[in-house]
């Protein structure tokens, strides 16, 4: 697991990353590459990014989340962002920033259910 940055845990076929407050841009950039490398290392095909600790999300972070989702998709993984606070949702819409490449769920539990239900469709391969 990468050190000094955002913790990335593995739950079955899914990676769970929890973003804390006030990220330096370098931490944000490192997170993106850490996630993709971890995805390759573990063969995970699902990513959950928990942003429940964030009271605000500016366009830089929103773009990072969106791009991470698109990059993960190229590697065959679906990304669910969970825990978006009401004020964050309101701010993003008011700014006119529409995040693509990701889907959202209100809770971590719901995010895990979404990822788990994907395997039931038989879309997942055997664990190596």
């Amino acid at each position: 697991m990468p050190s000094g940055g955002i913790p990335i845990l593995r739950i079955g076929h899914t990676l769970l990353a929890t973003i804390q407050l006030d990220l330096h841009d370098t931490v944000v950039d490192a997170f993106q590459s850490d996630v993709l490398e971890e995805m390759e290392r573990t063969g995970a095909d699902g990513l959950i990014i928990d942003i429940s600790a964030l009271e605000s999300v500016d366009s830089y972070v929103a773009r990072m989340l969106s791009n991470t989702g698109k990059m993960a998709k190229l590697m065959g993984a679906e990304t669910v962002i969970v825990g978006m606070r009401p004020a964050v949702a309101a701010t993003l819409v008011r700014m006119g920033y529409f995040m693509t490449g990701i889907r959202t769920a209100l809770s971590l539990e719901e995010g895990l259910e979404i990822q788990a239900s994907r395997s039931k469709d038989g879309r997942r391969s055997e664990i190596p």
Partner: protein
Amino acid sequence: MSFSANSGVVAESWEIRIEKEADIIAVRQLVRELTREHKFDQFVAAALTTAASELSRNVWVHAKSGVARIGVLRGERIGLELSFVDKGPGIADLQKALAGGYSTANSLGLGLSGTKRLVDEFHIETETGLGTTIVIRKWKKDF
């Protein structure tokens, strides 16, 4: 730049130089702290914090050096006034930037037009080769 007569006066203010990336966070944290201290609701707080982040980032990315001034407005209502001054390249096509006309790959375009929608007052003066000054105000909402 002139403001309406009832806008209140800046009662307390702070100044943060923007010269490194960490200064963006410092500005954001101060704004967040002030919204907590003066009990702004989460929506107004997030709008102010996000606007502060966007505008500080613009100074850092485009001018590399500048100053953020954060003031508490006291009048009929409480509000925050944030100003960002730099001696950077200035914005060549202001109308285009405010309309969100720059591509999404360019952080400047999206930040400005989006930020304008988050605040109650948005004033900008810019001149190519001389720099940019942006002043925003947002008031606490009492329901």
